[in-house]
């Protein structure tokens, strides 16, 4: 059977786990509630008098920072803790197929959850005439952002049997990727570092690359950044799983 078919079978199984567990629904509700509160209450959506979802997308890197690790922390930790990793890795598949299957399933789930916020798109369209192209770009940015966080969580989860450790480590790493491009932090760093250095550091931040999507610009450099972080994390994930096999 083709490798794609194998990945598809793993993806299907992982998706069925999400759909069959209450965690998925709790997660969906938490995401919608929090994104709603952050946008409409804390974000002063109505006072701004703008027909755009800018404020919603502004919160996304911070909201997903906690929610994506909550969804992904179990991916490998649970397999290790329950011993099912032995079953999984003795099936006629490569570790990479298992990694991709798990990653794709969780990514699809996250995309569906993010798309659950579509009533907001309808709301701004009813209240005014927003640039839907910018909104679409914002959503694409969110998908990449979620995928990037997820790849980091997959890696953290492969490193430990303990889901709490996987959660904390991935939140820390994702937070770091946020903070190095967060203006209060870069302003602070500018006291000690030269502007080119700050710019160099900020280039590694998810915020700098998400910014373009928020403004409706699909820049290939931003896409390459997100795809590279995902590929890199999954590659290391593969090495970690292979290393498990070396004992």
């Amino acid at each position, binding site marked *: 059977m083709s490798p794609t078919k194998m990945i598809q079978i*793993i993806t299907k*199984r992982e998706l*069925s*786990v999400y759909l069959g567990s209450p965690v998925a629904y709790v997660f969906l509700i938490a995401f919608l509630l929090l994104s709603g509160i952050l946008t409409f209450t804390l974000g002063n959506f109505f006072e701004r008098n703008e027909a755009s979802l800018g404020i919603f997308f502004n919160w996304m890197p911070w909201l997903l920072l906690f929610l994506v690790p909550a969804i992904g922390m179990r991916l490998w930790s649970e397999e290790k803790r329950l011993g*099912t990793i*032995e079953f999984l890795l*003795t*099936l*006629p598949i490569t570790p990479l197929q298992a990694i991709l299957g798990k990653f794709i399933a969780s990514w699809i789930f996250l995309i569906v959850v993010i798309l659950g916020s579509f009533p907001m798109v309808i709301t701004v369209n009813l209240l005014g005439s927003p640039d839907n192209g910018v909104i679409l770009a914002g959503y694409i940015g969110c998908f990449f952002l979620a995928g990037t966080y997820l790849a980091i969580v997959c890696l953290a989860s492969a490193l430990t049997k303990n889901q709490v450790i996987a959660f904390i480590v991935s939140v820390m790493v994702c937070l770091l990727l946020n903070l190095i491009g967060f203006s209060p932090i870069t302003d602070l760093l500018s006291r000690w570092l030269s502007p080119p250095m700050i710019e160099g550091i900020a280039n590694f931040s998810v915020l700098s690359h998400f910014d373009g999507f928020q403004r409706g610009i699909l820049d290939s450099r931003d896409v390459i950044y997100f795809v590279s972080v995902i590929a890199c994390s999954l590659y290391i994930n593969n090495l970690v799983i292979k290393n498990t*096999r070396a004992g």
Partner: protein
Amino acid sequence: MIKVENLYKSFQGKTVLHDISFDVQKGEVLGFLGPNGAGKSTTMRIITGFLEPDAGQVSICGQDVAQSPVEAKRYIGYLAESAATYQDMRVQSFLNFAAQIRGLIGVAKSTAIDRVIDLCHLEPVLHQPIENLSKGFRQRVGLAQALVHDPDVLILDEPTDGLDPNQKYEVRGLIARIAQSKAIVFSTHILEEVENVCSRAIVINEGRIVANGTPDSFKAQTSSGRLDDFFRNITRSIKEPKTLN
């Protein structure tokens, strides 16, 4: 069908397998015996490709496990010591997943699933989540997934562990029924099982093979003619304490 050559494995500097070699032919049920920590599970994990050996080779039906792991694993059905299965899945969907990932589709898949449901008597629990099942049923679900693709090679790590006497009897019967067409490696602590089920046995102690032969040939080496005396004699690494007067 199974060829194991000069396996060495150590964990954190401690050698757990030392020059393990054996082979298993079609129709043979090889009993794998040894005290706890002797290296039985490690050997089985290497055969199934879950662990990599430090040195040595394993080939399954002519496929080298290190060189072509996916091809070699297609021939194997494996029940791990923990019999770990996805607890959140229902028996039917778990078997469906196990069959699909082994390349079964359509009618062949449903026939194969029906066959193992029947073989392992899983009908009453088919729609239950695995986490709600008793240890005996979980073990049988593990066995069913290992058998679903009708593999040429079966590796069973303590398949009767935790089962009640009736279930043990059933599993032994099952192994005996399917043995003709397969090469089976079967680890156990229960010497009676070796006598009943295995055509040959290997005793492993502290990572080395200390005996390889038929259960009868082992018994012939003791004055009592009992398998447990033979086992104790060759695996006892520490001297028995002197009797206190």
